[in-house]
């Protein structure tokens, strides 16, 4: 196993020393990474059953610097470095959850989660059902997903759609700083296993984090921008690109509504369908491969539930069907880009 080498840790450390506020409520400038850390800190402070475990979450500070400083604050029992044994420590998270703990397991990247797929699919997702309701598994698993950082074929997957296929799991994709900050608490409060997918290109995203408003329920999608001509449906790392596309479209006189799924399982059909019924056109933007993708699922649901409202066929903007290549221009060509989204939306509007 090779650890992902990231260059953004120094920035993290600087930011970290600036903000140790924990559960600060006042509006302040922060990053996606810090927002995740604030959420972890809050959870560790408010619930003694919560602990974080994973590869290099402690002394190293987390592969992507999310848990930097938490070891010093909470000690090695609760910020628990594990051997490189994804199956064992994810399974241990399941067992600890069964025995009353509220573990947060960090899997470095989604590609490594495949080494724990048995535990996630065959144990976490099934125990409640197989036991006839006796054994809920209140476990949170966080992992990094996505491409866009020239990490090549084995570190650029978007496999969250695979997990969204599985009944018994809840799958979240925080795409904004607010969601990075506010999704963890309800995920921990949920009695079932929750997978949180953090897109690798979002960690450095910065912005203003307002005081904790009434947070959206976990299973609700969010309308990030309202519009009347076409609905752009996306999630996670593709949200910034989609919002940029909506800006370009607006300049061209096309009013695009942007729906951020937030929850990939369950999907918030109501928000998606309501929007498409209003705009009559839909473009689904998903960094995963097109075939058998979440984009396919969303498109199918639109076909099932909004068929008679469609004034154009549903379009998908997905990654090219190729292992993600290393070279900058090749990688860019493989991934959905703003221009692709604009083109698809223009075609839909006609």
């Amino acid at each position, binding site marked *: 196993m090779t650890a992902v080498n990231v260059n953004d840790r120094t920035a993290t450390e600087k930011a970290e020393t600036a903000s140790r506020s924990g559960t600060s409520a006042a509006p302040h400038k922060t990053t996606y990474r810090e927002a995740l850390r604030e959420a972890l800190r809050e959870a560790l402070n408010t619930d003694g059953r919560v602990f974080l475990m994973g590869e290099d979450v402690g002394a190293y500070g987390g592969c992507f610097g999310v848990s930097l400083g938490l070891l010093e604050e909470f000690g090695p029992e609760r910020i628990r470095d*594990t*051997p490189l044994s994804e199956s*064992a420590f994810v399974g241990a*998270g*399941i067992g600890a959850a069964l025995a009353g703990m509220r573990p947060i397991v960090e899997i470095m990247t989604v590609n490594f989660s495949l080494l724990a797929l048995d535990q996630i699919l*065959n144990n976490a997702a099934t125990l409640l059902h197989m*036991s006839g309701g006796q054994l809920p598994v209140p476990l949170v698993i966080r992992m990094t997903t996505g491409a866009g950082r020239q990490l090549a074929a084995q570190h650029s997957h978007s496999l969250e759609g695979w997990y969204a296929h599985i009944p018994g799991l809840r799958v979240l994709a925080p795409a904004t700083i607010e969601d990075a900050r506010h999704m963890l608490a309800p995920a921990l409060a949920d009695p079932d296993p929750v997978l949180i997918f953090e897109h690798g290109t979002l960690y450095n995203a910065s912005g203003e984090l307002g005081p904790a408003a009434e947070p959206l329920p976990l299973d609700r999608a969010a309308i990030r921008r309202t519009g009347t001509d076409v609905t752009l449906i996306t999630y996670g790392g593709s949200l910034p690109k989609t919002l940029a596309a909506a800006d370009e479209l607006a300049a061209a006189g096309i009013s695009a509504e942007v729906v951020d799924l937030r929850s990939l399982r369950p999907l918030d059909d109501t928000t998606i369908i309501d929007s498409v019924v209003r705009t009559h056109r839909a473009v689904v933007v998903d960094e995963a491969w097109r075939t058998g993708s979440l984009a396919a699922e969303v498109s199918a649901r639109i076909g099932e539930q909004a068929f008679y409202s469609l004034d154009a066929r549903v379009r998908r903007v997905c990654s090219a069907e190729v292992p993600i290549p290393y070279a900058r221009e090749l990688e860019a060509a493989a991934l959905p880009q703003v221009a692709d989204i604009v083109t698809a939306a223009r075609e839909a509007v006609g």
Partner: protein
Amino acid sequence: MTTKRTDRAASATNRRGTARKATAEHRQKLLESMLRIRRFEERSVELYSAARIRGFVHLYVGEEAVAVGVNEALTEDDAIVSTYREHGHALARGLTSEAVMAEMFGKVTGCSHGRGGSMHLFDASRRFYGGNAIVGGGLPLAAGLALADRMNGRCRVTCCFFGDGAVAEGEFHETANLAALWGLPLLLVCENNQYAMGTALDRAQAETDLALRASSYGMVAWAVDGMDVEAVERAALRATEAIRSGSGPHFLELRTYRFRAHSMYDPDRYRDKDEIERWRKRDPVVTFADRLRREHSLPTARLRDIENRVGAEIDHAVEAADLAAAEPVEDLLLHVTSGVGETRKEEEARL
């Protein structure tokens, strides 16, 4: 199949005098517990043949001493994680024949409300964390249960059963390392019945001394005669005492044999009939009953009582399972998530 290691273990136990005093009453209880499993499994064969039970059914006949012996070393607070050959573990743990039989009938009174079947027996109230149909799949989970106990300072043991086949799985090695690294209160019970489905141990594993391999992770590991319920009990007691005293995970390799094929669908082509006969001579139920008679711990009338009681219990279990209600199909989507699950009608309405 007694090895040197076993001898050492047994004699050490005797020297320390920690073995429970084997009263006639206790020994009869062990016999009854084994006999219950044996008769339950025999009835399962009949019911499977008559298509009353379906799915995969893996029988425990021949391995009864393992479940019964190990369970003697566990308290109510301890936890068990089991395999898909777990009828014996469940019955030894105290799940009723009725609940287990009803589960195999797919009835609402089953210990998993008909959602598990033979391979997925659960009872949270007895800390029986289920049959797991993925070889080795229960091991990491057991480590987590033990981790939670350790983090909370609870003096409990988690016992994880698995077979010799699981020792070839990565999950065994990951878990053994993690448990030893973190000093978890975990009892790893390897039921070495010599075959991973149809693959003999020496055809699958380069080093067939499984206890030796476990010990390489820095944990105490013994091989024990799994056909002798009292030897199993002694070894398990000694291991759990050590675990409770904080000395980390222990590994028991219990050498045993399944008399029946791997599953109901197995033509048993890979085993020599002579081999099966040789092992049958060491039948844990028969040899133990003989030993008790020889040592005047089992009057004939008493044996008849036990047989009758067990027989009646299983008759009753079958009857009750037969009469029990089926889970309503409207509840199909229950227990997928803990919230108020979407019912099938709601799903249809939505679509």
